[in-house]
């Protein structure tokens, strides 16, 4: 792709990234970090592309390792973020209905 186009995308994404999180309460710092962490797990797409291109056993072995790691990052990241945020559910006032029967 054209280098200028890539730089354009990069710079605009930097500003969007700055803007969306500029006003966040400290209560949400940890879940936000965890959610952002899960998003970069999308490197899984890159890992699948290189696995597709792999010709030697070495390349395939490294790609497969990359896929495993990226999947853990992405899937695990979203699940653990959801668990954190589930704890805040009671804010709307229906704490009692949730009770101690946390889903197992």
């Amino acid at each position, binding site marked *: *792709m054209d280098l200028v186009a*890539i730089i354009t*995308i*990069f710079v605009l994404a930097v500003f*969007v*990234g700055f803007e*969306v999180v*500029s006003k966040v309460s*400290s209560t*949400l*710092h*940890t*879940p936000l*970090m965890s959610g*952002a*962490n*899960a*998003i*970069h*797990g*999308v490197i*899984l*797409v*890159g*890992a*699948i*592309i*290189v*696995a*597709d291109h*792999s*010709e*030697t056993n*070495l*390349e*395939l072995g490294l*790609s*497969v*390792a*990359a*896929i*495993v*790691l*990226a*999947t853990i990052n*992405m*899937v*695990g*990241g*979203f699940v*653990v973020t*959801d*668990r*954190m*945020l589930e*704890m805040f559910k*009671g*804010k709307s006032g229906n*704490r009692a209905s949730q*009770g101690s029967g946390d889903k197992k």
Partner: protein
Amino acid sequence: MSRTIYDLIGLGAGVMFILALKGLSHPRTARRGNILGAIGATVATIAVFFYASEGNELPLNNLGWILGAIAFGVLVGVPAARKVQMTAMPQLVALFNGVGGGAAALVAIVEYLKLGNTASTGVVIATVFTVLVGCVSFSGSIVTFLKLQELMTTRPVVFPGGRFVIAATLIGTLASAVWVVMELGTTPLLVLAALSLLFGVLFVLPVGGADVPIVISLLNAFTGLTVAAGGYVLDATLLIIAGTLVGASGTILTRLMAEAMGRSLFGTLFGAFTAKPQEAGTASETRPVKSGTPDDVAILLNYARRVVIVPGFGLAVAQAQHTVRELADLLTAKGIDVAYGIHPVAGRMPGHMNVLLAEANVPYEQLSEMEEVNPTFPQTDVALIIGANDVVNPAAKTTPGCPIYGMPILDVAQAGNVIFLKRSMRPGFAGIENELLFDSKTTLLFGDAKASLTKVVGALKAL
């Protein structure tokens, strides 16, 4: 599927990631935001299976291996995420971040092996960046994991001449980066990866326990940038967008965290270069303190009308959140007004304490933010401080020049009585003596927070 459709799907996923970050910034929309992000990532992953890059045919080569690897990753990641204790959650996030950085580095290495001498200089530079920062993020995150899991000391690790070793490693890493760009060989790349891994370890070792969350957040931003660089190597726009978003928002978040904790970001980052070996034992404090028994504490609580509980790091470490709720329930049953005063950075990470107490089913109405609870301390009979120190240290108000000066604190000194449950007289992470410990209205109960609380609950029941 054509390249156009594939790229449009990528754009859609990118928009979902933006909405995800936006949603995660507000309590009401946070959960939906996270789910949107998960959908975006899933759509992007599925799309790649239906897109054949030039010259390739569907299905993808090595499809069995790819699907098997994904299944394996899910089998490892999901149970880990679901079963982890909420107190251990920060280190799990660190670990997830580390493996993401490792994955990005591996992707860049494989692509580099394939491209060989045909790679353009731009691609080689992006590859070098991805391998370098990805490896630093990987090994650095592993060290933060070990620190938080207390598999190694949480204190800063500084050895004589350490900063020269670190500086030398950094120079070596950068030199090998230049070497890769000039020589285009496998050997320089492996040297680069090895030195970057070493640098990641050395970079995080001198960081003290209190600064670890900031470092995790920073490494998270690093991983985002490596993913963006990896996207350039692979000509994948979505990776550039997603990686840059995480890199940018992660940087801001790191700064916000450092501010909320009253830490200097610069000091944290370059601690590796400025840290000096610590003096053998700081001058031990010999002034008398009033130390009490669980019965003394129970009596103080029993005759109070209003009690404010200030939970801190020590409560999280001792996993005492359920016991503290038991104590609060007991007091409430006696008609005592109970509130929790939550400092914005109580716990191991900003917001961590809210998660922990919510997990123990503490009623949300009892959790008061600092601004709400501070004006009520003059009407409070007992402030019960469990494993917290710096967040109630009046030095933040009274001692200009001390490391936490200017950090907002919980005004517990205004309460009628102050009780500290502490493990020892050791100062908090900021390493500053707390004058309040020597105040005449302060009672100290030494010991593990959970054990102490259990004894207090027992004593209270016996009254």
